[in-house]
């Protein structure tokens, strides 16, 4: 009689152990899956289009700034006439980052004095090729750059 009781409680305990451990394991499987289903805060993955943390009004006419675009610098500037433009900012000579020169309204590389015009065309100094033009759009307040 006594063995039957212990046998019974042993079985109950085993069933409990089996249930909880399998249940906990299942939870440990489901937790990552549920977390996975919730999309991250960051914007969607895309190399061809990037929304910048820059307001269109932040860029005054005849000035520019460097912004990252898929790990590479891009020069975003407003021409003296007020048009927003974006060009790859990597100098085609030795890959330095170029800058906008307000006093001459051109794009200049400080490393070896390469000069580009606001269309990205190399006009003076060692750069062998023009900079690549990118599309710029203003969506609401934000500026969006896209591969042309």
């Amino acid at each position, binding site marked *: 009689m006594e063995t039957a009781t212990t046998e019974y409680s042993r079985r109950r305990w085993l069933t409990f152990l089996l249930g909880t451990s399998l249940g906990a*394991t299942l939870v440990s*499987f489901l937790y*990552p*899956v549920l*977390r*996975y*289903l*919730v*999309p*991250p805060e*960051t914007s*969607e*993955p*895309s*190399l*061809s289009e990037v929304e910048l943390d820059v307001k269109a009004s932040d860029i005054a006419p005849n000035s520019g700034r460097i912004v990252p675009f898929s790990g590479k610098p891009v020069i975003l500037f407003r021409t003296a006439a007020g048009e927003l433009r974006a060009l790859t900012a990597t100098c085609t000579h030795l890959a330095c980052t170029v800058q906008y020169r307000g006093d001459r309204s051109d794009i200049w590389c400080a490393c070896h004095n390469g000069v580009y015009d606001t269309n990205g065309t190399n006009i003076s100094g060692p750069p062998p090729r023009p900079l690549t033009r990118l599309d710029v759009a203003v969506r609401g307040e934000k500026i969006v750059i896209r591969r042309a």
Partner: protein
Amino acid sequence: MSSAAPDRGPLGAALAWVQDRIGWEGIAHLAEKKQVPIHRYTIYYYLGGMALFLFLVQVATGILLLLYYRPSASEAFESVQYIMAEVPFGWLIRSIHSWGANIFVGVIVAHMLSVFFLRAYRAPREMTWITGALLLFLALGFGFSGYLLPWNTLAFFATKVGTDVPAQLPGLGPLLSRILRGGSDVTGATLSRFYGIHVAILPAITTVLLGAHVVLVQQKGMSVPLSVESKKYRTMKFVPDFLLRDAVGWLVAVGLLAALAAFFPWELGVKADPFSPAPAGIRPEWYFLSMFQGLKYLPAEIAGVPGEMVGVLFFGLVGAVLVLVPLLDRRASRGLPSPWWNRLAVLALIGALVLTILALRPPPGAAP
């Protein structure tokens, strides 16, 4: 069939109502009746269940990956990078899917070898073998099409080589290669195509074949090897005895997959650049290595026929023989041992193993 008991409460009543509608008793009866023989080869019975489990893991992780993956040449790599780097536990899901794919192929190869050497394909289980062999090809198709989807350099060039293989076939070969690539070369069109193949075409065919395979296994019951058949052996119930043991294996598999994902997250590689020259040391997934290496060693011409064509035709022949083994092995179907088939299989295995090892050696002219 009605078995509603008055003392079950509302939940029990609902359960009984559902059981009544789906013919649960019949299923329960089948499960109750099913027995698994116990002998020295019983361990091999678990491989089929393991393969099925890993397949379901692939289905589950694959569906999850679909939520973020984008099948285009310009975004595929970035979306996989996004999954790996930004999505919570994305690295886990993707790594399990990649590791799981490789282990899955390994398990079904082991499953097939055990079935082969135990002659489980002999009458009346020929159709079980044939559906199984076709499922192996489908698994290889899953592997081949899935390999390209992250759109990295290695996969891109391996796919270039791989899709060139059918082009070697006489007659319709070049057309076949074009159909596979969605054009004359591997491009973004190939990616769209492989995506469709990977997530729609192959799953549809697999569902049908896998269903047939599992139903056949249930219908015919477990095969007992020739050497055991004549002796007396114990049996265990499929439910719960065998199923619980299966579950142990599955839990080990999940643990292993999670550990592999955490310690060796599947590499993302470098984004494919169709215009860059092929990098040194491109190779396909391990299960294609022996074929890949075999084609390399073939001379340009064999008896006036292009060497690669001979090679591809040979692989086709091997595949056909593999599917038709139960029909070709007449002795086994009469319940007699067929040692020649064993020797042939061992020879083929050694050949494949040697070629795989040769393919794994670092290339002699490896880039410094």
